[in-house]
C-alpha cells in the first residue's frame, strides 16, 4: 500500500453558473521514504492537488476520485479524522514563510501550537520546539522561541516552518514551492535541510515546484502537470535525459544552462492555459510544435510506457529524439 495514493482526482470550482474545472483525473503515488516531484507552470493545478492531500479544498469546490493516505480516503474524512491527519501523519511547508507564519505571534507559539493542540503539556512542547529548531540549524533555539517572525530572515523563517512541519512526526511531507520566495543563496540551504530531515526520518515527500531541474536534482520520480492533468511521469534521471512529452522537453529547453556549448534557452511559445479555458483535444496543442489536427480534437490519455507514462498522441513516433 502506497503512503500517498491520489486516484483519479478531479476538482471543479463553481464560479457563477458555469462550473470551472481545476483538476481532471490526476493520479499519483508517493511511497514511504520516497521524494516525488510535482512540476508545472502556475495555474497547472499542482498546488491544488497538493493541498487536497490535507483536505484543504478551494471554497465551494466539488471533488471526485480518491486521495488515500495510508489507505484512508482524505476526501471522505470527518472533521476529527482530518484534524488528526493534519496534526500527525501529513505536514505541509508553504511557499512564502512570511505569509504562512502569523506575524503577530512568537515563534515559540507557532511551534508549540500544534503540539499543545495534540495534548502535549506546555513545558514539554517548548522543550520539543527547541529540539526541532536545533535540528533545522537555528542558533540559540531557546532564544529564538521568544522572538517574532519579522526578526528572522526569509531562509531562517522557512527553517522554522520546516521545524513546525516536523513537530508531529509526519510520515508524509508536502512541500509547496518551499524555496520559490527565498534568495538563491538560501534556497540551497533549505533544500538541503528538507532532504536531510526527510532522509533521517524516512518521510515520504511530495515536492511541488515549477523548476524541473530542481525537481530532477532532488526527486526520485517526477510528475509533470499541464492544465490540470498529469502529462508525463517517470524517474527523475530518465525524465531529465529523455523526456517523451513535448511539454516536458519544452520545459527543459526553456531553462538556461551554464555549460559553455549549451544552446540558448528557448521559451515555450504562447502562455499556459488553465483547464477551464481548455479547447477540446490536447491542452498543449496550441503551444506544441508537433501538434497535428488529431491533437486538436482527441484528448490523449496517460498511457504507460517503459518506466513511466506519457499523455501524448505522438509519443510513440519518436518525434523528440530528432
Amino acid at each position, binding site marked *: 500500500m502506497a503512503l500517498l495514493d491520489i486516484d483519479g482526482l478531479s476538482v471543479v470550482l463553481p464560479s457563477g453558473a458555469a462550473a470551472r474545472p481545476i483538476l481532471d483525473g490526476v493520479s499519483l503515488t508517493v511511497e514511504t521514504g520516497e521524494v516525488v516531484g510535482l512540476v508545472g507552470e502556475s495555474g497547472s493545478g499542482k498546488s491544488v492537488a497538493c493541498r487536497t492531500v490535507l483536505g484543504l479544498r478551494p471554497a465551494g469546490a466539488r471533488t471526485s476520485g480518491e486521495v488515500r493516505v495510508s489507505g484512508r480516503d482524505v476526501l471522505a474524512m470527518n472533521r476529527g479524522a482530518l484534524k*488528526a491527519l493534519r496534526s500527525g501523519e501529513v505536514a505541509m511547508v508553504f511557499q512564502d514563510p512570511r505569509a504562512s507564519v502569523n506575524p503577530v505571534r512568537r515563534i515559540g507559539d507557532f511551534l508549540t*501550537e500544534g503540539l499543545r493542540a495534540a495534548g502535549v503539556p506546555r513545558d514539554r512542547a517548548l522543550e520539543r520546539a527547541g529540539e526541532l529548531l536545533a535540528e533545522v540549524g537555528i542558533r540559540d533555539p531557546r532564544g529564538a522561541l521568544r522572538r517574532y517572525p519579522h526578526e528572522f530572515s526569509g531562509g531562517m523563517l522557512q527553517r522554522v516552518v520546516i521545524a513546525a512541519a516536523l513537530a508531529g512526526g509526519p510520515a508524509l511531507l508536502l512541500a509547496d514551492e518551499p524555496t520559490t520566495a527565498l534568495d538563491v543563496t538560501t534556497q540551497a540551504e533549505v533544500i538541503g535541510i528538507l532532504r536531510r530531515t526527510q532522509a533521517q526520518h524516512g518521510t515520504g515527500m511530495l515536492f511541488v515546484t515549477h523548476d524541473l531541474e530542481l525537481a530532477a536534482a532532488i526527486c526520485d520520480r517526477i510528475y509533470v502537470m499541464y492544465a490540470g492533468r498529469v502529462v508525463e511521469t517517470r524517474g527523475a534521471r530518465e525524465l531529465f535525459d529523455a523526456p517523451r512529452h513535448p511539454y516536458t522537453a519544452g520545459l527543459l529547453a526553456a531553462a538556461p544552462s551554464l555549460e559553455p556549448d549549451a544552446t540558448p534557452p528557448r521559451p515555450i511559445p504562447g502562455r499556459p492555459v488553465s483547464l477551464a479555458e481548455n479547447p477540446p483535444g490536447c491542452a498543449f496543442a496550441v503551444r506544441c510544435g508537433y501538434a497535428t489536427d488529431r491533437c486538436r480534437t482527441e484528448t490523449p490519455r496517460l498511457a504507460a510506457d517503459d518506466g513511466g507514462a506519457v499523455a501524448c498522441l505522438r509519443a510513440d513516433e519518436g518525434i523528440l529524439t530528432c
Partner: protein
Amino acid sequence: MIRFIGGRVLGLVLVLLATSFVVFGAVHLAPGDPVSFLMRGRPITPEARAALTEQYRLDEPLLAQYFHWLGGVLTGDFGRSVQFRQHVGTLVAEKLPVTAILVGYAALLICAAGIGLGILAGLKPGFADRAVLVGTGIGTATPAFASAIALTALARTAGWPTYGGGEGFGGHLKHLTLPAIALALAFGGLVARVTRAAVRDELGREHVEAARSRGIAGAAVVRRHVLRNALGPVVTVIGTMVAGLLVSTTMVEIVFSVDGIGSLLIKSVTNKDFPVVQALTLLIVATFVVVNLVVDLLQPLIDPRLSLTGRGAR
C-alpha cells in the same frame, strides 16, 4: 519608548495650545455681548457696565485677554462662568461624572455590539452578513440626536424610564441606558464595519490556512489567528470615534435632558458664556488626543512589527 512618549506629549501640548487659541478667538469674534447677557436686557448704568467689563477684561486687546486666560489655565484657573457665577472648574467637575458615565456606557455598548456584529458578519457570509451590513448602514446614516428623539418617543409610549437624575451610580446607569443606546446606534455601525473588513481580510491570509493545515481546531484558528490579528484596525477606529462620541453627546444630552457637560456646553454657547465654552472645548480636544496617544501605544503590543523605537521594523 520614553522618547516616543515624550514627543507625543509635546505634540499634545502644542495641539492644545493651538486649539485653545482658535477657540478663544472664535468665541470672542462671535456676535453678541456677554455684558448684555449678564444684565438680561435690563438697563445698565455706565458705571456698572464699566465694572463688569473690567471684571471680565473685555476692554483689553484679544491677545492680552488670551494670555491672561492661558496663564490662569496653566495654574488650574479656568475663570468664572458668566451665567452661573461659579468657578468653571467647579462647574465642570460637577457635570463631568454623568457625561463620563454616559460616554463610557455608550463606548461599552459600541465595542460589545460593534465588534460582536462585525465578527459575526465577517465569519458568516450570507444572511447574517447582509443583515449586519444593512442594519449598520442605517445606524451610521442616522445622526445620534435623531435616534435620541425617536427613542424618547418610543420610551414615552412604552413607559420606559427616561432620564430623571437618578440616585447614585446604579440610578444613573438605569436612566442613561436610552441615551447610551442612541449614541451606540450612531457609532456602533462604524466599528462593526471595520471589524467585519478586518476579519475578512485576515480570514483570507495564508497563515490562517497554514494554521488549519497544521490541524489546529477551527475555533482556535479564529481566536488566535483571525481575531487576534484583526485587532489593530478595530482599536484605531475606536480611538478616532471618541471625539465624535463626545460631540454627539451634547445633542443627546439635550434631547434626554441629561444634566452633563454636553447640556452645559450648549447652554454656554447660547449664552455667550465664553470661559465655560473654552474650558469644555479644551477638555474634548484633550480627551481625543490622549485617547489616541493610548491607541498608538497599544499598536506595537498588537502588532510587534510596529516597534516604537523603529528597531526591527521592516
